[in-house]
């Protein structure tokens, strides 16, 4: 007789093994490793959250203490390889195969482990690709999640750090998997329910509150004049020109400069209400002055940010907020928002080649993709028009074709050189060399050139939509590559022609004097300024407090 319900049977077996350590759903912290050894089987797919920000750090430490004779050859399918313990799992042979998305904090450890054969790489995904595969062929057998609190029924409250969890847990719970959550505390009544207890099997109250990376805080004091100049050009030459109201900013000092120029430079240009009103954005502290000045209608966030809880609570008109008054984030929905509901993505990168392909990979550093490739892509499935989308679409073709489509603006905002004199503009991406070295099927490209519509450097804006040949594209890029080798090899005559056709626009062409780009233009010049803008509601993390 065919067995069509084997998953349910195996699930019951795992639960029975786990219940030996539980009182109801609750497991004492000292029994956590034993629980994991009982419930997880060798070769299981596990998701140990591993989000962009919040980390199930206690469960990670407990899993890393497991006996490799009992737990081995696990297949890790999680967004982030962030904690040292995530790497330990592979070093110890507890885990073997890896499918993931982002490894910024472990960007040197991952290639080392690949080289030594400790990690067998499935693929590096974007966030939503990985979540999508949770529902097709990479469904986790066990999910190790993290929440602020739980009640005895297993309902979970995550507050602003909801992030990946709903997607991870839905896939796991509805395909016979086991869900274990570490929480800061177990209470009688939760402020709100983010995950229904139905989907949660075991709870562990961790000895310390879970760790959250402050990834989206940028100190305005570190923003340079060059970044301010490029930001001014982006505002005047792109946001104003196309009328960008719905947008997504990647994180970085250059985009932080744009956020801090809205209440000052953009205000002087009369752009309030005309641009930057509806956002898909993590809670960047650098957007506080623009919010306080009335620029922003609403923001949906992928995750949260350390120190922003009280401010967001007090600004519930702006942020998505639960009945309890605290913010609720969703990586999945915000990624969708960035793909289909935003008219512009703008972000930075480490390398750009002559086709406009960009990458953050270098010879010994693999940071993964995160969400940028999706945010920085033209979503071909989009159908609803908007003015910026149609305008960009028209620029990309000649004449008036009958079957038209629009284009989402995908803007790379860079300085010609990054730190230590390393050029951003290159003839060939380091990524190609890395692909050969590690025998990858694909050279990791963050954003493909044919999705890019504009590149902005301190030398000017290159509008790739208006280019008609690869040669024009190449010279448009060389024409804003400054004093890099790539820039110095430009064809000066051709660059002049492109400038006349407005494919290249210099600051002067936009009416901007480069010497006017000054730090005094920023609405806030320090973290303390941001705190004061927020009426002291924003509580900057310790590492940013220099007063």
């Amino acid at each position, binding site marked *: 007789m065919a067995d069509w319900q084997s998953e349910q049977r195996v699930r019951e077996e795992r639960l029975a093994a786990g219940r030996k350590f539980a009182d109801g759903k609750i497991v004492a912290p000292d029994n956590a490793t034993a629980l994991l050894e009982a419930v997880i089987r060798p070769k299981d797919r596990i998701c140990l959250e591993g989000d962009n920000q919040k980390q199930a750090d206690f469960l990670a430490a407990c899993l890393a203490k497991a006996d490799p004779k009992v737990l081995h050859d696990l297949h890790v399918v999680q967004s982030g390889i962030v904690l040292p313990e995530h790497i330990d799992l592979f070093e110890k042979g507890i885990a073997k195969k890896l499918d993931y998305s982002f490894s910024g904090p472990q960007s040197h450890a991952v290639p080392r482990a690949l080289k030594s054969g400790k990690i067998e790489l499935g693929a590096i995904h974007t966030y939503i690709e990985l979540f999508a595969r949770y529902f097709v062929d990479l469904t986790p057998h066990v999910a190790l999640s993290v929440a602020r609190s739980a009640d005895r029924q297993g309902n979970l409250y995550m507050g602003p750090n909801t992030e990946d969890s709903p997607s991870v847990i839905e896939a796991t719970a509805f395909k016979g998997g086991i869900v274990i959550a570490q929480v800061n505390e177990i209470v009688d009544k939760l402020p709100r329910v983010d995950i229904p207890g139905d989907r949660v099997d075991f709870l562990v109250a961790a000895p310390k509150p879970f760790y959250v990376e402050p990834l989206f805080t940028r100190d305005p004091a570190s923003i340079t*004049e060059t970044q301010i100049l490029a930001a001014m050009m982006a505002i005047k030459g792109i946001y104003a020109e196309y009328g960008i109201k719905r947008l997504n900013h990647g994180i970085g000092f250059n985009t932080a400069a744009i956020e801090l120029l809205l209440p000052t430079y953009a205000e002087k240009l009369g752009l309030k209400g005309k641009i930057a009103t509806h956002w898909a954005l993590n809670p960047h502290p650098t957007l506080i002055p623009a919010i306080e000045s009335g620029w922003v209608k609403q923001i949906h966030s992928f995750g949260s940010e350390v120190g922003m809880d009280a401010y967001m609570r007090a600004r519930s008109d702006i942020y998505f907020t639960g009945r309890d008054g605290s913010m609720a984030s969703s990586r999945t929905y915000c990624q969708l928002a960035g793909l289909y509901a935003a008219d512009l993505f703008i972000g930075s990168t480490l390398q750009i080649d002559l086709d406009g392909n960009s990458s953050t990979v270098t010879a010994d550093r693999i940071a993964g993709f995160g969400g940028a490739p999706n945010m920085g892509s033209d979503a071909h499935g989009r159908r609803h028009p908007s003015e910026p989308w149609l305008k960009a679409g028209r620029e990309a073709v000649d004449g008036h074709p009958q079957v038209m489509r629009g284009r989402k603006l995908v803007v790379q905002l860079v*300085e*010609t*050189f990054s730190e230590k*004199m390393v050029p951003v503009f290159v003839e060939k991406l380091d990524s190609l060399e890395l692909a050969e070295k590690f025998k990858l099927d694909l050279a990791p490209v963050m954003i493909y050139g044919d999705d890019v519509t504009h590149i902005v450097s301190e*030398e000017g804006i290159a509008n790739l939509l208006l280019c008609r040949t690869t040669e024009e594209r190449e010279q448009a890029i060389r024409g804003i590559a*400054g*004093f890099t080798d790539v820039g110095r090899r430009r064809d000066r005559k051709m660059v002049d022609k492109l400038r006349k056709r407005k494919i290249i626009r210099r600051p002067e062409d936009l009416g901007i004097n*480069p*010497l006017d780009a000054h730090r005094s233009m920023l609405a806030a010049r320090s973290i303390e300024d941001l705190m004061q803008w927020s009426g002291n509601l924003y509580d900057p993390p310790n590492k940013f407090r220099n007063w």
Partner: protein
Amino acid sequence: MQTLSFRHKAKRRLSGKKDQAIIGVVASGNLEVLLERVLPETACEVDIATPLNGYDETWKAVVAEFVERTSPGGLRISINDGGARPDTVYLRLMQGSALMEAE
């Protein structure tokens, strides 16, 4: 330390009355630029002291572009470089000549 020296003939004298100006600071990623109006009308001299070797061609290109853009005739420009990027060098040179053009 490496020293570099470039001599250019500018199209005309740099306007303004200032005799001397200094801009920038010798720090990592930064540089200080001292400008002195001490040379004949169209002469321009740029002397650089830098701790980074092998960037001669880049310095040459930056200085040439600056001279072409600004026509800093009569200026002796001295640079103490802290390892600044070329765009920062160019910016400081432009800031310096703007200070010198003040009436």
